[in-house]
């Protein structure tokens, strides 16, 4: 049997500090203006921000966008990347509605849809995607989901992920927040 390869993003929620470096790198790499391919979402623990998740296209195993596109603009490569080829795109926005993660976005400048392609051009040359190489805390990685990704969580803490499309995103969950109090020196003196 052909061993299926499925590339996907691995997010280490322990490390992400929400610096938006990945967002900026993506904007810069693809010269995007009004819309973003990657977005940092913060999730809240009742009152305060408890962590961040960096989300782009999840390159699902069963991509909903591929099923609905009337012009066959989407294809799933052998490495599992869901690639959007804008040449035939007519901007019908059916994929925008179908994707549960809102990964494809309509650009009014081009009149076409645009989506994260996991920087296939960079990857084909042997580089990491722009967002991954820009992450200073190394919270974002590209892994092969079908090989040795069993230890990672399928859903991020606090942010639920629709499972029907089988998104190829994995997470390392954060530890419970810990707080340390420094003993007040002044108290001792008294």
């Amino acid at each position: 049997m052909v061993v299926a390869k499925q590339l996907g993003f691995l997010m280490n929620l322990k490390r992400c500090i929400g610096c938006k470096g990945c967002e900026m790198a993506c904007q810069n790499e693809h010269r995007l203006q009004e819309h973003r391919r990657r977005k940092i979402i913060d999730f809240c623990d009742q009152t305060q921000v408890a962590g961040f998740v960096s989300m782009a296209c999840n390159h699902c195993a069963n991509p909903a966008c591929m099923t609905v596109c009337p012009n066959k603009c989407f294809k799933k490569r052998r490495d599992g990347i869901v690639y959007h080829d804008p040449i035939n795109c007519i901007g019908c926005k059916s994929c925008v509605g179908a994707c549960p993660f809102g990964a494809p976005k309509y650009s009014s400048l081009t009149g076409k849809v645009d989506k994260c392609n996991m920087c296939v051009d960079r990857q084909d040359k042997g580089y990491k995607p722009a967002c991954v190489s820009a992450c200073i805390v190394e919270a974002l990685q590209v892994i092969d989901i079908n090989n040795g990704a069993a230890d990672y969580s399928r859903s991020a803490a606090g942010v639920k992920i629709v499972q029907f499309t089988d998104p190829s995103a994995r997470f390392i969950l954060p530890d419970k927040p810990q707080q340390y109090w420094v003993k007040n020196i002044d108290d001792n003196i008294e």
Partner: protein
Amino acid sequence: MERQRLLLRELLLIDNCLEYQLLGGKLAKDQTFTELIIYCPYRQDQSQDQSQDQSQEQLQEQSEVQLQEQSQEVLRLSERANKQIIIDIQLLALDKGQLLVAIDLTDDSCEHIELLMQYSDNIAAIIVLKADGSYLSKEFAERAMESSIPVILLEKVTSIQLNSYVELLRSLKKANQLLTYIASTNSYLFIAMNKYGISHAWSIIEQAIQQQLFVFNHHLEPIPISDAMGEQILDKQEEWQLLRNEFRNSKNIASDKLVLEIDVSHAKKRWIILKLEADSLLGYLGISEQVYGTVDELDIANVKRIIPIVIAEMIKRREVMETKRQYKQIFLYDLLHNNIEEAPDVIISQARLWGWDLAKPHQLFLLELRNNRIAKLPYEEMEHIRQLIKNTIAGYFKTAIVEELHGQLVVMYSDEIDQDRKQRKKTAKDIAAKIQHNIHEQIQEIEAIIGIGRFYPTTEQLCRCYQEAKTALDLSKYSPGVSVMHFEDLGVMRLLTSIRDEQLDDFLKEYLQDLMRFDNANNTDLLNTLQVYFAENGNFKTTATKLFVHTNTLRYRLKKIEEILVVDLQKPEDFVNLYVAMLIYSIK
């Protein structure tokens, strides 16, 4: 002391004697001999190899010593110059027909054979040795053909070798190790296979045991190893069916050797089935008992020596098939994931390489096999299921493409474009149910779950059909009792899949949270009641039976639910809202 009786057949099973030619006479199965006499006619040509001459002299001495031990003077050679032998066999205190005479033939004069024929009563067989590989003279061959006793030609064997083989045979028989020895010596066959191919090695064994041999897969379907075998297999269709039935009913399938008896056109026929195992069960080797006689231990030992060769051949074939299949799978992956950039006609011509006709539109199923016993099916089982699916679809006059992709089976068959949508859907579901039934019937522990996509008129849209089948297969697990799911039957579930989870969660909470809280607080099971009520299409009677309660209890409980949730189950809006909420609950 009486000399040990040896079967002539045993001698001919020794590695180098395997490839013998019967020049004349008949070789009976129970032909025995006790004594070997080797006659080397005098060579006038002194320029012959000195060492060979020497060895022949030695041998003569040897055989003479042997005979003298019995205080018999058996072989008296007259004047060598006359090239005459006089064998005074009457002097030999042997039973009739127990003498094996070997002639190391260097010149083809017929005198030897003529002379020996005079004593045909006493001679078991004549072995003609032709170690130098030259041809027999026509004259000699004609004489041999008229002979009443078997005349056997052995090429590539010298008289010394033959003598040592007989000695070896004697000692092996004494130690009761003959069968093990024969079964384990197969270098000769390996060499024959490497030089001339497996069909040559095959025919050597078939000749030695004088029976037909067949290779089967692990469901006892014959596999053609050579072209000739393919024709023989076609001739015996009825027999295979009988054999398979008998095999299925047989109780000791686990044993290494299995004897099956079948009735072929009112005549009893025996088959001996040997296992082919390498790591896992590869198949079987079958000996069909022919008119020539029964198969005994000696034959089986002989057949056993070809087993490693057959196993090697089968593994090789499987590897080749696997490689081809990998290319197929990659093509299929590309096709179903919209990954081929070429024009449709290029796709069609590429598919033709695999024998697929993609010019016609195809209906696609996705089949998942669930097995309670083991995680992954072995290769043979998978192959069997694949064939089973093909046969089932062939029953509907359609040709099927069955390929494995990421642990699931992709099943495609061509369909007419101008057909009613409902009719097409019904046919597809019928075929799927039939496939499922057939698989379950053959292998009980396997359950097949099938997802069916919608039909699209062009090949480019197969990718969409595949995704739909995948969705149908994934979501079928939320509809209990349904194992054939058509994408069109998913209904509202299809819409739910493209809604974000948070929204679904909110919807669920909005409609059912009060009920869940009530259940927790009062230790009731109203949520389950509602679930069964929906599953039974709102029928009071069947719901009550399912829940083991009285209808009035059910009425009371539904009233309570209506009170808690402030809804009216008779109102269509409320009913639908609660139904959808319940559906989301069951998916999560």
